[in-house]
């Protein structure tokens, strides 16, 4: 996979301020998971519920076509207006959201459909109900099961990629990030309050955490950075094309090789001396 910014002008030329990237990633009015689904797929049908407890509106999923190819799409959804945001818990999922995602991934595996996940969350929800229903277990099960899912998985980060709540949809063959998205082990606010006992030092924390697409590309945690454009039609068309080509290439691999490569992708991550 090529690692290049050369296809677009705003990246690569000079270093960007990580805090600006964070603000862009969180900007109100930015497209959400459902916007991406509507613009990338045709014939999309949403499928609800985890079959165990509830339907979590913070994660949407279903089947649709990507340039003709049937795929499963699973996305965090933050919502646009305030009431929808509240209903969708600002894209912070409960265990049932992750369990719905896993159910749909298993369904995709059965029919050998590729899975596109769209990540945009501040993190998995921290609350009484979430804990009582096994938030940790729900994420852990996704990590385990996704690693050996015998169908292609691609994760696309479109805004915030917050910690375990993001990773639970991102144990993928490839991870792509939009130009204005972030991916981090902890929120910069959380990091700042631990490091400097001052949640206001977000700007400094952003720089320390290396959460921008260009940093993560350099660290080997993502495969591609996707340029954004004010020409939304052109942007979606390019994305459809790139995704479709990648899925066809991944579909041509035998399943054991696909899974082996996926494990190999994560296996090499980490820095230590011996």
């Amino acid at each position, binding site marked *: 996979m090529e690692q290049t910014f050369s296809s677009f002008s705003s990246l690569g030329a000079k270093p960007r301020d990580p805090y600006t990237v964070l603000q862009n990633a969180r900007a109100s009015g930015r497209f959400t998971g459902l916007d991406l689904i509507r613009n990338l797929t045709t014939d999309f049908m949403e499928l609800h519920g985890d079959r165990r407890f509830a339907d979590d509106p913070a994660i949407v999923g279903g089947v649709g076509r990507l340039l003709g190819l049937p795929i499963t799409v699973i996305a965090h959804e933050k919502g646009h207006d305030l009431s929808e945001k509240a209903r969708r818990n600002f894209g912070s999922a409960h265990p049932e959201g992750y369990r719905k995602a896993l159910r749909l991934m298993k369904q995709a595996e059965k029919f050998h459909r590729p899975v596109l996940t769209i990540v945009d969350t501040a993190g998995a929800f921290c609350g009484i109900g979430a*804990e009582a229903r*096994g*938030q940790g277990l729900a994420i852990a099960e996704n*990590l385990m099961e996704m690693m050996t899912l015998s169908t292609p998985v691609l994760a696309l980060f479109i805004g915030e990629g917050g910690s375990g709540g993001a990773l639970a949809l991102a144990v993928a063959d490839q991870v792509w990030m939009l130009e204005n998205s972030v991916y*981090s082990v902890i929120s910069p606010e959380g990091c700042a309050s*631990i490091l400097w006992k001052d949640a206001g030092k977000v700007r400094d924390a952003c720089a*320390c955490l290396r959460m921008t697409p260009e940093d993560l590309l350099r*660290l080997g*945690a993502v495969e591609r950075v996707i340029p954004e454009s004010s020409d939304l039609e052109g942007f979606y068309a390019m994305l459809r094309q790139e995704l479709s080509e990648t899925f066809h290439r991944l579909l041509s691999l035998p399943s054991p090789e696909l899974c082996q490569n996926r494990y190999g992708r994560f296996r090499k991550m980490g*820095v230590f001396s011996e």
Partner: protein
Amino acid sequence: MLKKSNFKKSRNRLEGLAPDLQTDKPCIPQELCTVCPGCKTMLFSHDLEENQGICPKCGRHFRLSARQRLELICDEDSYEPWDETLTPKDPLEFPGYGAKLKTSRLRSRENEGVLTGKALIHGSPCAVFAMDAGFMMGSMGSVVGEKITRLFERATRERLPVVGCTVSGGARMQEGIYSLMQMAKTSGAVKLHSDAGLLYITVLTDPTTGGVTASFAMEGDIILAEPGALIAFAGPRVIEQTLRQKLPKGFQTAEFLLEKGFVDAVVPRDQLKDTLGRLLRLHTQEV
């Protein structure tokens, strides 16, 4: 009874330090005596250690270091360390991380937050790991993730069951995305071990939280927990800050998780080794 002599010393590069550092124990207090936070009784540290770190009055379980934990569950002289020379780096050049690693190594006398290896438990061979709260609160960075991954890979090759004792504050923020990726890496190794038909038993001890709870801690075939242990994805302080609401008493304890169906059994420490031995034997041939 915890016998120090049974265990090979770590090849920690910091051996040969000042005597006060050598005897430092992160969990059972170093002082001559201590007040039990459970029942407020004054306890002699020596008695506490003799009693496996359990308060003789109220049964409160004090934290054990990784080495004390392995001494507790492994047969005498049976522990053989694996990958003990792995040491952390500072890949992001994160402010203060280098200094923090240095003090953690001095204080814990360990290279990192987990010990891995092979041992016998009541005669049954198994791969074991024990995390150490004394090393940056058992947080998971590259080394913890790598050692646990290698343990599962080797256990898969050698067809060994795995017994793992967890204690962790969660992710190691200072290693950024690499810390997060360890969750996926370890989970993948657990999955391959599991798909090979091998047994994995986890023992959740106080506290097991964050990224460790959301990965290998909860992935055991059988999940045991120590009495009173805090087991959570988001710790109580995080939830109280987020919701501005006090949590009910006993929330996120081992007993709470048992009631909610997330652990198989709460096992007091003085029965832990026998329980593990029994479970391991139940997964071998018919007798």
